């Protein structure tokens, strides 16, 4: 059976199904991270003796720049497909993947330095919140890398058989990726600077 509305919009929603699906998923993600932010606010403001650890701001700033750059490259990859330019998609898709790898490597260095300093998730509430939120965000980056890796590898075959659907898949992936960037935009000042 053919999956309906993969390219043409559904008359009642005005959207192809995957786009409606990703927005519903992102809505649930907003609530997931919202609950964590809410818990963080409650824990932090409710404790007058909140322990403040010096986080690695230069590394986090570098990671912010990396994620922002990857948001641009993913949207340029999608623009390439809309221009029927598969080479542009491939170039910017690979660049996005490499930037995501860069983010994870920097995060790895950061975690490793924190472990060496004796800071673990069970050290105190500050570190518990920090590792939970950045860890969950990191898992989202990792998940995005798996999906993007598929689209750059075996999933790219669809460009030959159904280019419009493949273009929509990349748009949908891009929306997820921008959301991951968006979460980091709030995590960065909340956990590193305040």
């Amino acid at each position, binding site marked *: 059976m053919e999956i309906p509305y993969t390219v043409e919009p559904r008359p009642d929603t005005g959207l192809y199904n995957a786009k409606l699906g990703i927005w519903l998923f992102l809505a649930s993600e907003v609530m997931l991270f919202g609950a964590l932010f809410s818990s963080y606010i409650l824990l932090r403001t409710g404790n007058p003796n909140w322990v403040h650890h010096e986080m690695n701001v230069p590394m986090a700033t570098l990671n912010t720049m990396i994620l*922002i*750059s990857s948001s*641009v490259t993913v949207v340029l990859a999608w623009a390439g497909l809309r221009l029927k330019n598969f080479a542009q998609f491939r170039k910017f898709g690979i660049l996005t993947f490499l930037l995501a790898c860069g983010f994870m490597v920097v995060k790895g260095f950061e975690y490793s330095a924190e472990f060496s300093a004796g800071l673990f998730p069970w050290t105190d509430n500050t570190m518990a919140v920090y590792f939970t939120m950045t860890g969950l965000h990191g898992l989202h980056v990792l998940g995005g890398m798996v999906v993007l890796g598929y689209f750059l590898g075996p999933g790219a075959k669809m460009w030959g058989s159904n280019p419009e659907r493949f273009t929509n898949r990349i748009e949908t992936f891009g929306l997820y990726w921008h959301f991951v960037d968006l979460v980091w935009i709030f995590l960065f000042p909340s956990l590193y600077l305040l």
Partner: protein
Amino acid sequence: MGGHDTPEAIHAETRRYIVVFAALAALTVLTVAVSYLHLYLDMAMGVAVLLAMVIASVKAALVAGYFMHLLNERKTIYAILALTIFFFSLVMILPAGAFADHNGTSTEVAHEGAGEHN
């Protein structure tokens, strides 16, 4: 989106993405600068939090508006987002509710409770 776009329109969009990227990079630098300024000027924590969240919100609006094309989307998506924002606001208000409860009735009990656990 995008199905009926002309190559010229897509190229114009691409240039806009680059401008948005530059704005996001500049705002990131500003976020860090403000955080150091907060320490240097001994700014009140509340002001520092407010400034940081305002800058983060502007950055988020740029990403959502341009990269996620929310400036020009279907009503269905706006409806989903309206519902999400409503429930998200409720979740963010919860700590304030907890404080109101705490301040109003049970400060001493809470302290005693905390003492027992320590």
